[in-house]
């Protein structure tokens, strides 16, 4: 089967320039030949100086790499963004309602709209969360929604990230870099600001402080430490908010209250933006050998003296197997039709669907239910015969462990590569904050697959990022 021509976000089929990219096109034509090359070099210098690096798991000690940054921004029109934002807001509202329900009355399971086994027997379901009433009934406060585009009006949600989504610092720093590299290009557009993110993050965190925290609650960012791949982001966000960046050892629990160790003794902590996975936050309740967490933290949370952001157990709502039910979830809680579509997904435990998958694996994308970051994944069209055979066998052995989707022709954006501009596939991760209200930063992180023809945009697999512009009217 031949793949359809991917949608080019800059050019119409006849080669003319799409409206949002008009000015960019003009600007690009005005640039002297070496300009983009110089910008790319400058960009690298800017990022390296700021220490924006990420660690790659499995590679040698001391590996800190820069995520490649593409100097050509991706541009989204105001109308396109309005539609996206409405769809995203609807989705996160429904997912939070779903989380509240399954950790309380479980009405959606009783109604049979989502299979009970899928939730109750799921490793991502956290029974310890039963009955907790988090402030404002919000479980997932900080969400990244992965969206792909296949046509002028065709947006799909690829994945919801409700645990500890990362990458927002790249969104912010990409904008900083772009402002330094091409100030004139900004003057020729009305670009919606993203710098509001940190202010909104603070407001969100303050709005979910526990009762009795006072007017200015103490917020900390909890990191696994400097060896974590996203450490730069943790320190960046803490710095932007003026919050303390804590490791587990900096916090302790006493009689159900959480304190940090300061130079003048213990200080109460009200809200913890934790970037440590559920399993590791508290050795008393979860993984007993965790050295990263704070013993007693979860009990303090249950006792209502501290807010954890995001709440533990949110992973059940972004589980790949639950993903297929999100349209159902939206209708059940909001009584609305979903505004954003899911990518059609085959369920391998269904005999007919599995048969189709096994016969057409070369055209499909296979994902492990619990995999992430582009690992444990097969992209049919670019796979080898041996890889396809391996995944066929794996699916037969554990049909419930995989979800399968058609290979989407991800849209492309003009990207600077090898001293020239060429289309490369992109996706989009807008960031959503949920507290006293839902705040979506216009734009988000655009990830771009730098290899020609590649559909894998993950930074760990050779992807880069772009500044993402939402134009204001």
């Amino acid at each position, binding site marked *: 089967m031949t793949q359809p021509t991917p949608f080019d976000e800059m050019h119409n089929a006849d080669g003319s320039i799409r409206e949002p990219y008009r000015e960019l096109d003009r600007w690009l034509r005005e640039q002297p030949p070496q300009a983009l090359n110089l910008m790319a070099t400058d960009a690298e210098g800017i990022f390296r100086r700021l220490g924006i690096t990420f660690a790659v798991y499995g590679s040698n000690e001391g590996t800190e790499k820069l995520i490649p940054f593409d100097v050509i921004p991706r541009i989204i029109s105001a109308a396109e963004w309005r539609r996206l934002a409405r769809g995203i807001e609807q989705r996160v509202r429904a997912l939070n309602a779903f989380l509240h329900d399954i950790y309380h009355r479980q009405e959606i399971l009783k109604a049979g709209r989502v299979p009970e086994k899928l939730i*109750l*027997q799921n490793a991502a379901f956290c*029974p310890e969360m039963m009955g907790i009433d988090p402030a404002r009934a919000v479980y997932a406060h900080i969400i990244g929604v992965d969206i792909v585009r296949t046509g002028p009006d065709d947006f799909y949600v690829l994945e919801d990230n409700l645990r500890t989504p990362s990458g927002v610092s790249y969104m912010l720093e990409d904008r900083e870099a772009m402002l330094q590299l091409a100030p004139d290009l900004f003057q020729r557009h009305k670009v919606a600001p993203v710098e509001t993110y940190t202010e909104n993050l603070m407001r969100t965190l303050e709005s979910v402080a526990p009762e009795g925290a006072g007017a200015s609650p103490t917020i900390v960012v909890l990191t696994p430490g400097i060896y974590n791949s996203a450490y730069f982001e943790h320190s960046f966000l803490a710095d932007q908010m003026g919050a303390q960046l804590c490791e587990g050892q900096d916090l*302790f629990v006493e009689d159900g209250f959480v304190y940090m160790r300061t130079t003048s003794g213990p200080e109460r902590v009200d809200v913890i933006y934790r970037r440590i996975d559920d399993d590791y936050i508290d050795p008393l309740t979860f993984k007993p050998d965790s050295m990263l967490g704070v013993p007693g933290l979860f009990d303090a949370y249950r006792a209502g003296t501290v807010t954890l952001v995001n709440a533990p157990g949110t992973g059940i709502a972004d589980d790949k197997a639950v993903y297929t039910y999100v349209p159902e979830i939206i209708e059940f809680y909001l009584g609305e039709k979903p505004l954003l579509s899911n990518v059609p997904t085959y369920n391998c435990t269904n005999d007919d669907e599995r048969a189709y998958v096994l016969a057409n694996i070369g055209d499909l994308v296979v994902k492990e239910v619990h995999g992430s970051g582009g690992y444990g994944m097969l992209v049919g069209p670019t796979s080898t015969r041996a890889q396809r055979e391996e995944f066929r066998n794996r699916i037969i052995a554990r049909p419930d462990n995989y979800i399968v989707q058609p290979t989407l022709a991800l849209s492309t954006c003009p990207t600077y590569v090898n001293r020239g501009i060429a289309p490369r596939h992109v996706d989009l991760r807008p960031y959503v904050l949920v507290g006293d209200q839902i705040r979506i930063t216009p734009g988000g992180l655009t990830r771009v697959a730098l290899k020609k023809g590649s559909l894998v945009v993950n930074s760990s697999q050779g992807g880069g990022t772009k500044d993402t512009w939402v134009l204001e009217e």
Partner: protein
Amino acid sequence: MKIAIRHELAVPVPQGATRVQMHLLAHPVAFAGQHIRHWAVEGPDIATAAAFPDAYGNDARLVTLRRPESPVSLLLEGLVETSDKHGVVGRIGREPVPALFRRITPLTRSPVTVYGKFRSTPRDGRDRIGLLHQVMERINEFHVFAPDGVVPSIEGTTESVRPAPTQTQTQTLGTMTQSQSLGEPADRRTPATARDFAHAFIGACRALDIPARYVSGYLLGGDAPGHAWAEAWDDGLGWIGFDAALLLCPTERHVRLAIGLDAMSAALVRTSPTIGEVETTSLSVAEA
């Protein structure tokens, strides 16, 4: 019936630790068949502990032990008035939805050889109580457990029922006493404890889609007062107790202490950090 309980425990903690967190499920909850006339838990730093309901509706405490001396001594002492409800516990206030207790945990996996024969047995309305009694009898037949926690089934297939050892030590009432009372049998296999019976019963129920949960408590009489059993859900009657070790529904001699998905989540004491096992130094359950 009035039952007086006095239970002393020794909790080992690392020497020189500045702070040790202790999660306690040591405060029984009342229901129609059980009134708490008096209950007190004594130990260091308990007076300032945080009190909150846990996920299963237990009355939990988080105690922060400051520079504790090892072992830490705990004393549970109380007077409970019970009445025989034929095992029916019913519905208790702040408990989670019964469906939660269909979740299978590493401790409550059941081999199909145990529950398989009931798969087509009717299980609704009046039939359910009958089925649960049959399951209890079936479990009681599997009364011998191998030392490593493997349940040998009649057909010879085995399945592990214990989770991987973890650093947070847990101790439940069932394990402490029942195995002592039964003694070491000739074939050197560890006899099933009340905890094992409860897990096996719960596992079978969950495999049959019946919510079932673990109960830790005390038993008056006999030579095994520390005890554990199970409760299964019936839409009409609510929770009903089943004591597969004794092959009966809990009576006025049973005192309920805590519930959970399994022995881990209903553990009386959990500490972090920790070393070694919690020990019962003395226990008396007597009619008052």
